[in-house]
């Protein structure tokens, strides 16, 4: 009797255990599990447009392997496809790959100039919808063949995407290219007063020739693959990668200016630094200039602090004057440290120091003027975020209904006056240059 009762009591427990065991088998996900060897971790994505308007996509995929790194020469491989849209090309990549392409580790998105000029929104849609794609991926624009850029191998990294990622993380000191992430691109193309600048990546001749032979070989190989691949016959003219005999390396310098989602031109390294300075996004900047006041020689600086204010006429806060803004002053203040003096002038008097400060301010002001001229006339686009500063000051309704739609035209006619004041800070561990007695 008591055994029967015990059996009855244990029955629900046994049923529960049975259900759990069944659940372990059926809902654990092991049924269609994906082993790491069958996953292709996409490190870099490249997008460009062919001459006939089709979309060309490259994926640089990491190759996870059980072999030691020394044995496994090729740590990544590249695949390419062509489609009518970005998604069309991407899905063809998936169809062609023996591995499941996993886009959660994309470090760099390299966009070709032709595609950028045609509108990057065509790529943003598919990537923004993708739950795998990371918003913190770096975005670059290149005038070189995208396939060649992604195929470059260096001594520092066998993957161009990883190399670019490291470069962008660690080269904030130079700031001659914007730290353009996918997130910044997505948010800024929607604001007419805050247009995006994307870092420019270029192929340049290697200064360390023997170290780049691997990359060169890979580029030649990639170019060869194109002819044999499924989309080989559809290769673009704009992205043709001719097998280079000279070793190449990647340089991130300058930027592509976008108006809305369309690229409108390039900024060189100095213009880019000035644009970042005006937008308060310049992390650090180094420059060399002639010694002022005919001192002879040159002097080098590290910019250690800067702050830009965009000043509008009185009454702008009410929104009444927002439509009639004609004059804007960009006031920039900051400090530079002296890093190098190659001159007989050693700046040991207050007068020479004041002259130096005036010279630095004038040098930077000239750079800002050049940028403003480029933004208003050559590019015709508010890449210096004056519109964003105005948007923050006027009521949202005024900006949306009265200013935003005409801001691009209004920006071109603005009188923008830079007002730059920099002071010299530290001069290092020595007051004067060590030099032999004359």
């Amino acid at each position, binding site marked *: 009797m008591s055994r029967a009762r015990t059996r009855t009591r244990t029955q629900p427990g046994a049923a529960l255990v049975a259900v759990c065991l069944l659940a372990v088998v059926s809902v654990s996900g092991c049924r269609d599990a994906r082993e790491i060897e069958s996953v292709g971790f996409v490190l870099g994505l490249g997008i460009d447009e062919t001459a006939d308007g089709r979309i060309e996509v490259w994926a640089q995929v990491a190759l996870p392997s059980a072999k030691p790194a020394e044995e496994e020469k090729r740590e990544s491989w590249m695949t390419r496809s062509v489609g009518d849209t970005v998604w069309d090309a991407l899905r063809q990549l998936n169809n062609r790959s023996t591995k499941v392409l996993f886009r*959660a580790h994309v470090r760099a998105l390299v966009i070709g100039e032709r595609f950028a000029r045609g509108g990057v929104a065509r790529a943003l849609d598919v990537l923004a919808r993708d*739950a795998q794609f*990371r*918003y*913190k991926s770096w975005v670059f624009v290149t005038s070189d063949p995208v396939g060649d850029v992604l195929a470059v191998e260096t001594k520092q990294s066998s993957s161009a995407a990883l190399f670019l990622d490291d470069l962008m*993380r660690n080269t904030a000191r130079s700031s001659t290219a914007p730290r353009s992430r996918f*997130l910044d691109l*997505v*948010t800024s193309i*929607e*604001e007419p007063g805050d247009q995006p600048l994307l870092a420019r990546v270029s192929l340049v001749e290697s200064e360390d020739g023997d170290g780049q032979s691997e990359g060169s070989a890979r580029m030649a190989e990639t170019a060869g693959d194109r002819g044999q691949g499924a989309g080989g016959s559809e290769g673009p003219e704009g992205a043709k990668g001719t097998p280079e005999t000279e070793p190449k390396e990647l340089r991130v310098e300058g930027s592509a200016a976008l108006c809305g989602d369309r690229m409108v031109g390039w900024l060189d390294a100095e213009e880019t630094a000035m644009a970042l300075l005006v937008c308060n996004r310049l992390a650090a900047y180094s420059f060399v200039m002639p010694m002022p006041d005919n001192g002879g020689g040159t002097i080098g600086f590290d910019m250690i602090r800067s702050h830009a204010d965009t000043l509008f006429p009185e009454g702008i806060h009410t929104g009444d004057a927002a439509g009639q803004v004609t004059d804007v002053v960009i006031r920039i203040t900051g400090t530079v440290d002296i890093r190098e003096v190659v001159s007989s002038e050693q700046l040991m008097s207050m007068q020479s120091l004041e002259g130096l400060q005036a010279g630095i301010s004038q040098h930077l002001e000239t750079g800002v003027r050049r940028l403003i001229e480029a933004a208003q006339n050559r590019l015709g686009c508010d890449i210096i975020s004056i519109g*964003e500063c105005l*948007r*923050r*000051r*006027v*009521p*949202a*309704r005024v900006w949306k209904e009265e200013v935003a739609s005409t801001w691009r035209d209004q920006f071109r006619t603005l009188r923008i006056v830079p007002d730059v004041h920099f002071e010299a800070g530290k001069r290092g561990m020595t007051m004067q240059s060590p030099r032999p007695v004359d």
Partner: protein
Amino acid sequence: MIVFATGFLAAARILVPAAGTAAWISALTGGAVGLGIAVLAGYLAARFPDHSLVRMAERIFGAPLGKLIGLSFAAYCTVVLGLGSRESVLAMWIAFLQTTPPILISAVFYVLIIYAAYLGIEAIARVSLIFFSLVAASLLVLTALAAPVAVPGRLLPIIGNGLGPVIRAGFLAASYAGESIVVLAFIKHLKDKRGASRAMATGVATGMAIMALATGFGVMMLGVRGISRVTFPVLETARMVGFGQFLERAEILFLALWFSAALLKLAAVFYASITSVADVLGLRDYRPLIIPYALLGTALSLVPKTVLETFDYLDVFVRYSVWYVIALPVVLLLGAVVRGRRGGDDHVQSKDAH
């Protein structure tokens, strides 16, 4: 947790188009309205210390009208349950479990809710106590990680689309705060009834502060247009943060905690629904209702076929439910004061005790 656990996933999508950059202020305004609701509900709880909401309504307005009010309350809880579970399931389905049928995710949700309901409100409350600190800590971590990516200037102009739109959006936000009235179904279990107002007000204030923080950071990271475009703003925020190269793509960790919170909220709302229906039907035990009601909840959560439809339902609910959550405690309290009713030793109370 009842206030923010499901709503904060997509609240910014509703508040930002209405209030613009001042959406976070709207969340705080909504919190102020919610505080008023919480205080009224607290007075009600103090006046009828041993009554559930249905019993309070019956006591004040008599059985027929009281049952009608009780049914309306159960319907409100059911809609909160249906929409809340649908929203949570969608967030999980779209962002993570893309190949899993949503009905399966929903079923897992409801199995856990059923288990929680069987254990009763004490178990739900105790587990909530543990998870609340974890969820709050996860949000603090998220805030700290989001700070370097955020652009505070995007919160300007401070008044957003203007004072009127901010107040209107505040009423939308108040509907989230107003979900706190769900606790009237089980507030009789509170040990110290005099502290009911304070307890509810603290909950509303904390919940709406979290919602304001989530909305503010969403705007700072995605901008007004960006946040109006994305499906789940808080998920996007979580996707963007990281701790150097050491901790990246950590959104799944946040999601695990947030979905636990959502689960506990939905379990509490489910419990409130079935106990209210049991009270209306005069059942001694609510447990026989659990399975049928869970089936009803699952079916209701699948009524919106698409994401768009779900957000449309959500928009309508947020727009109009605020008036219900304001009216319910006001009507009950006014009725109690005018008719001089309070919890006592009458037959209704004895029935309740029984």
